[in-house]
């Protein structure tokens, strides 16, 4: 979910939004406010988180990113880092640094399948809820992109803003909607993360790099690619954990606490993707390398001085 939200903004605005992680954290805290402080059901927390973070996204666009639109990807990137700092510490100043938990019952794992004598356990809340929410959102998004005028205008704007404007699409509205959807998805992802671990500072920033990895592996700007990328990155981390656990055994390498290095697997996959297939698995012709470096192997012209 987080990856999908991030990739949407990238598709339209063409910059990497570092603040997306903190938008997720913000969503998690909003749901915490509704759920624990006001004592409502967590479902309302989800709704409120999606709404507030969606609004936050639109606000960021209106206040900051709209004014930086013609100044290139890096200006917007730096601004999004500034917003990261602001959001993280507004949350810190308001809610304090100690982690919180939602007022929900953490049910114990249930056995849903037994193969031989090995029971496969799954936790209703931590395992099934994220998957079902994600699946529902993906279906909704798919319907949005393919069945509605709005979805089509979003795709058109992502493809070629000038052409979209010439065809009578109100680009500004499309951009705002995209931010709202991206923010809402980020908010939902934040609440799910909060359920999975607990609601703490830097919650979103911790996973931001994985989210970037998923987005890049899947192909920037492609929502379906982002979903696929999320799956691949998750799988890679699991495989790497098994491999590192094997390295940890004294007979093999005896490398101490090797499994702690498992996040690196996601980074390696990300960088490999950037080098081998920079457009990602599902990406079209995204321009990731500046044209000059694609021509890196041009023979160097040597000038003879004084001639």
């Amino acid at each position, binding site marked *: 979910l987080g990856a999908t939200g991030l990739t949407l903004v990238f598709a339209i605005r063409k*910059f*990497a939004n570092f603040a997306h992680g903190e938008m997720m954290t913000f969503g998690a805290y909003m749901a915490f406010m509704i759920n624990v402080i006001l004592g409502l059901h967590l479902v309302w927390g989800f709704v409120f988180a999606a709404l507030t973070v969606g609004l936050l996204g639109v606000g960021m666009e209106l206040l*900051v990113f709209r*004014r*930086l639109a013609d*100044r290139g*990807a*890096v*200006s917007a*990137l*730096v*601004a999004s*880092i*500034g*917003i*990261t*700092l*602001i*959001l*993280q*510490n*507004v949350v*810190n*100043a308001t809610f304090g640094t100690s982690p919180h938990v939602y007022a929900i019952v953490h049910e114990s794992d249930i056995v849903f399948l037994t193969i031989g004598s090995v029971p496969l356990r799954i936790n209703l809340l931590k395992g099934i809820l994220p998957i079902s929410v994600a699946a529902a959102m993906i279906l909704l998004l798919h319907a949005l992109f393919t069945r509605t005028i709005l979805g089509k205008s979003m795709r058109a704007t992502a493809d070629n803003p000038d052409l979209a404007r010439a065809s009578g699409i109100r680009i500004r509205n499309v951009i705002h909607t995209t931010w709202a959807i991206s923010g809402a998805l980020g908010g939902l992802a934040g609440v799910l993360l909060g359920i999975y671990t607990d609601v703490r500072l830097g919650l979103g*920033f911790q996973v931001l*790099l994985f989210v*970037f*990895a998923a987005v*890049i592996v899947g192909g920037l700007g492609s929502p379906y690619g982002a979903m696929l990328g999320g799956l691949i990155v998750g799988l890679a981390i699991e495989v790497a954990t098994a491999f590192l656990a094997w390295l940890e055994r004294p007979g093999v390498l005896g490398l*101490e*606490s090797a499994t*702690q*290095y498992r*996040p*690196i697997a996601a*980074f390696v996959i*990300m*960088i490999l993707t*950037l*080098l081998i297939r*920079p457009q990602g698995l599902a990406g079209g012709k995204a*321009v*990731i*390398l*500046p*044209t*000059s*470096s694609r*021509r*890196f192997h*041009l023979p*160097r*012209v*040597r*000038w003879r001085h004084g001639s």
Partner: protein
Amino acid sequence: VTLSPAVVDFANFLIPASIFAILALGLNLQWGHTGIFNAGVAAFLAVGTYTTAILITAPAPMTDQYPGHLGGFSWPFWAAAFAAMLLAGLTGLVIAIPILRLRADYFAIATLALAETIRLILVNARGLTGGTIGVLDIPRPFDRWTVGDPGLSDAYLAALAAGLLLMAFLGLEYLTRSPWGRVLRGIREDEEATLALGKNTMWFRLQAFVIGCAVMGLAGAILAPLVRFLEPNQFDPLATFAIYVMVILGGSGNNRGVIFGAFLFYSFDWVSVRVKDYLPEVIEAKIAPIRLIVIGLLLVLLVMFRPEGLLKEKKNTYPPVTR
């Protein structure tokens, strides 16, 4: 020798400010002059700091609480600082070779991932870095003459830091004013055109990146004796962006400007710690997040309204060639 408290106070201001200024100079070579967006400053600082700390510490007795780490070489400071620069530069070289071709925002993500990787290594490679306990009892280069006088020790270290800052400034100023620096600015403004002029832009970018990383390693070499003990949490990947504020605030592309930016920024930091006692309790408890909110706000506002910084980069005009 007893120094007046004001001198010691000034020394305590000068050391961190110089470290920040050296970091900002290193970043300025990469970002200000060449346009390389390095989001992993914390990583290169960490490499430099840990290298120095491991090389200059004396052998420590192993206890249950302090299981020890690689170290106990008792190198002289100068040699360790040189090694720190070398290793930080080498780290930069290794990471740059695959990813330097990427566009700025992808490069930023990749270097941020590097910073997180280095932090993981600092936390988990206990045999190398002492893990979360860290490296303890880091000596200062002038400890022999300052036994029992912490004020004098601070003053000596401040002189050393200021001296190294001056060296870094002069060296980088020389480099960036040279034709080499002109090529870097050419790459920043228009890489295609620079390539068309027959410059191997990737090679120049690689040089600028590695030298910048080595300068950050030098900052780490001063940080190690300043803090006297190290632990991985001092190298939060987000800390990198404070250095960006300094560079952008001072004026990216202007070496004098970024030093000014670093000193101004650290003055703000310094004052915010000093005024803490005079603030109402409600604000005092929140001073750390409020500081960071101000940094974030500053970053956004600078990018929006004054991207060239306080001290603008001087337009380098060269006298016409006469034959």
